[in-house]
């Protein structure tokens, strides 16, 4: 009786001790102190602002932090994730709704650890796992540039995250697993451009955010670094083995593509890559050249260039209809005799990356959504065909053009992919 009582008492003490330790651990893990607010700085160094503008461009800040038709960097763009919908926040120096009260240490903590000034955890859709690899100078320059801009009053929109990811402190467990990496040390055997390219790709450019596959909890699979992912229904192609593929990229082609040019043999960036390439085009050409040098040095771990589609025979393709549709809808710009081919560099479609890719997604997305005009630029602009072509026509067109581009490898599962994309774009 007595020993039983003693035992249970010891047990209770142990349980209490574990609970207290657990509580301390949880607090240490999930609580971050706020950083004192500051008066927004008012004087800036002109050279630093210029450098900061370039860092903000290289980091693609505006691509997510500006919504279509919204004020520059004032946030509000919805980001649809498997865990719910997030809205990008206001990073203009507005004291109430932006980052006007943020000191440089607060900004740097956000960039490197994903913690807001007031101590709340930011969601990893904000690529702090990459930004933490940026140099201190770049972060300071970006800070100066952001703080110097016009303050826009734009309160954050309410996120619609699903349980349990609507509980922000849980991000701390994610961070425990994935928050590592620091500014890269230059590789002496490599050129300056290569090292710069690696820095841009892994740091500010956060290319792996889209171009690496994500695991179940939305983290990049480091074992499949830059081996291709997906974003907003588009295929973000593998960036390894670019020089060794069936339709290989030359350095010149890659530099042009990265700067939003129309590149003979590959086409021009569409979808989510378009704003990224337009950002790069505003930077000195040496930046895109550095990225190209680094990317072209990455070899594919697979020797096979493309995985052939598995069930080519499952969908009998109607190439006659496809050819008719091409003549009626596409040939004006993309036909062999189209004046636009000569005057304005519209690509012959066979060799474009979209038609050469193993998946039809990027081709279909481009046809459905078109290529929006770029303000201030004469082109290219491609109209959206979502309302002009029905699913059967789209399928026939895709099958016909794929037949021209890759007669040996017809696309499988065309109609189901089209159905899925139509649902997504509704």
């Amino acid at each position, binding site marked *: 009786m007595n020993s039983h009582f003693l035992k249970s008492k010891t047990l209770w003490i142990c349980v209490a001790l574990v609970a207290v330790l657990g509580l301390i651990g949880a607090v240490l893990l999930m609580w971050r102190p706020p950083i004192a607010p500051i008066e927004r700085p008012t004087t800036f160094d002109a050279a630093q602002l210029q450098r900061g503008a370039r860092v903000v461009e290289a980091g693609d800040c505006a691509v997510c932090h500006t919504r279509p*038709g919204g004020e520059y960097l004032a946030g509000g763009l919805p980001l649809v994730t498997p865990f719910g919908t997030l809205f990008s926040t206001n990073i203009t120096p507005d004291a109430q709704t932006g980052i006007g009260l943020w000191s440089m240490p607060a900004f740097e903590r956000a960039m490197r650890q994903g913690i807001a000034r007031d101590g709340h955890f930011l969601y990893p859709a904000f690529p702090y796992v990459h930004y933490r690899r940026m140099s201190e100078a770049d972060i300071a320059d970006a800070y100066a540039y952001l703080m110097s801009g016009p303050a826009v009053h734009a309160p954050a929109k309410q996120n619609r995250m699903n349980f349990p990811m609507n509980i922000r402190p849980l991000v701390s467990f994610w961070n425990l697993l994935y928050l590592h990496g620091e500014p890269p040390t230059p590789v002496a055997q490599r050129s300056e451009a290569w090292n710069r390219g690696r820095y841009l790709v892994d740091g500010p450019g956060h290319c792996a955010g889209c171009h690496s596959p994500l695991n179940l909890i939305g983290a990049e699979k480091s074992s499949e670094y830059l081996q291709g992912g997906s974003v907003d229904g588009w295929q973000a192609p593998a960036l390894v083995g670019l020089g060794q593929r069936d339709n290989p990229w030359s350095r010149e082609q890659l530099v042009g593509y990265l700067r939003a040019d129309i590149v003979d043999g590959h086409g021009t960036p569409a979808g989510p890559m378009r704003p990224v390439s337009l950002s790069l085009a505003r930077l000195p050409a040496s930046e895109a050249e550095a990225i190209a040098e680094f990317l072209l040095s990455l070899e594919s771990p697979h020797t096979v260039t493309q995985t052939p589609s598995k069930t080519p025979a499952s969908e009998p393709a109607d190439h006659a209809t496809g050819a*008719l549709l091409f003549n*009626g809808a596409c040939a*004006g710009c993309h036909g062999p005799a189209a004046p636009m081919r000569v005057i304005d560099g519209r690509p012959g479609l066979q060799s474009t990356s979209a038609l050469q890719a193993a998946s039809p997604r990027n081709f279909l997305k481009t046809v459905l959504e078109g290529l929006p005009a770029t303000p201030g630029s004469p082109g290219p*602009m491609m*109209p959206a*065909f979502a*309302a*002009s*072509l029905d699913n059967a026509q789209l399928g026939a067109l895709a099958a016909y053009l794929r037949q021209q581009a890759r007669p040996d490898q017809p696309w499988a599962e065309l109609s189901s992919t089209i159905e899925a994309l139509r649902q997504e774009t509704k």
Partner: protein
Amino acid sequence: MSQIILNVNGAVQPLELEPDMPLLYALRNHLNLNGAKYGCGFGQCGACTVIVDDQPVFACLTPCAGLDGKKIRTVESLGSAEKPGPLQAAFIEKQAAQCGYCIAGMLMRAQALLERNRHPDETTIREHMAGNLCRCGTHLRIIEAIKQVAGQNGSLT
């Protein structure tokens, strides 16, 4: 040649056509509906805009094959010179046309917006109309006309 049945402005029209023929030529050359205009032929200017079901499309890039069962509407469906529809009346009142070549397309694109969203704000109107160009530069008057109808209630036809 094959037989293609087009439903245009509520009338069913069986036609003998090459199936890759863009809808624009069928409308103009076979049905004498000359409202929609040929501008660029590349879907870059919008002069050929008509409504298919409830969406504005470039008729110059929409093949006739596959329009089976869809309801096509052209500017002729909005009203006539004697009895213009509300949007047409607003275009006249605001003197939105200079040479007039783009106006049929402008009307149809604006009509599609107003049918979906009866009271769009100016930003929405501008974004929606961005695909249609006017070489005379009367965009501001066109927007004024659309705003006028957007500010009213009542039927659009």
